[in-house]
């Protein structure tokens, strides 16, 4: 979910928490909501209250629609090929899965977290990984770069600009 929608969702959740908290406190006689409601609904504040209520309803409806949209609309995917028959695209999630499966062929890699970014010239893959401390880091990282580039180009048909590898941590054992 993009940052903008997360921000809206967070605001909406905070409003819901505040309302629920006020109701909970009122049910235990710790808070008296009626004076506040009377103030909000008097002739002076009535219009402002209506505007706030409309904004909250609008926010709720927008978030409801957004949450029911299918995966295809929020991930346009990366174009593999485009021809007379139509377009072939691959979602970022599928590319990440392909990377994770190709890297499994290298012994000593404990965990990887791939991130994909795209521009007009092709893909840039950033991989954060955890490896066995007994292994030679330049060898493992070079093998990872080679295999990821080969698999994405040969199996995925994707144009790869660069494969950037960062070793985050070491972990011993199988």
């Amino acid at each position, binding site marked *: 979910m993009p940052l903008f929608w997360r921000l809206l969702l967070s605001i909406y959740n905070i409003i819901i928490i505040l309302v629920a908290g006020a109701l909970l406190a009122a049910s235990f006689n710790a808070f008296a909501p009626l004076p506040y409601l009377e103030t909000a609904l008097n002739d002076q504040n009535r219009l402002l209250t209506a505007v706030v209520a409309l904004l909250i309803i609008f926010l709720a409806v927008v978030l409801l629609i957004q949450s029911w949209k299918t*995966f295809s609309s929020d991930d346009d995917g990366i174009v593999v090929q485009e021809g007379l028959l*139509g377009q072939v*695209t691959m979602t970022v999630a599928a590319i990440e899965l392909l990377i994770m499966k190709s890297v499994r062929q290298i012994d000593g890699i404990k965990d990887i977290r791939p991130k994909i970014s795209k521009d007009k010239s092709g893909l840039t893959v950033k991989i954060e990984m955890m490896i066995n401390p007994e292994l030679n880091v330049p060898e493992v990282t070079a093998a990872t770069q080679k295999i990821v580039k080969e698999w994405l180009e040969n199996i995925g048909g994707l144009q790869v600009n660069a494969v950037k590898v960062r070793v985050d941590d070491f972990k011993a054992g199988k």
Partner: protein
Amino acid sequence: MEMKRPEIANDMGVVRIADEVVSTVAGLAAIEVEGVASMSGGWGTDLVEKLGKKNFGKGIRVEINDQETSIDIFLSIMYGYPIPQVAENVQKEVRSAVEMMTGLNVKAVNVHIVSVAMNKAAAEETASDSEAE
């Protein structure tokens, strides 16, 4: 813009083909292609399938406008198969099946790879997982 459904008219009347028929034909053609693990239709469709109602048009979106048809296919590919080749085979098979069975003119078959699976059984699971994210 007004969408006009294609009609096959003859002396006895008119034959109209529903989108669901086209998506079923496309889905059956796509799943037969070597390297395709499963179709990916969203959690709602998966839930209905788990309850026992098989949906052959799962993962297919059909747009019919006048005499031209565009088909979008969302699928999961078996790990190890060359994706551009499998996708091209899907495009060819789907186009051929839809044109042959319905007589519609297929303008484009857009293939969207949403997941990569190790085997057919795992494919259903990974396709559902990627949708949930």
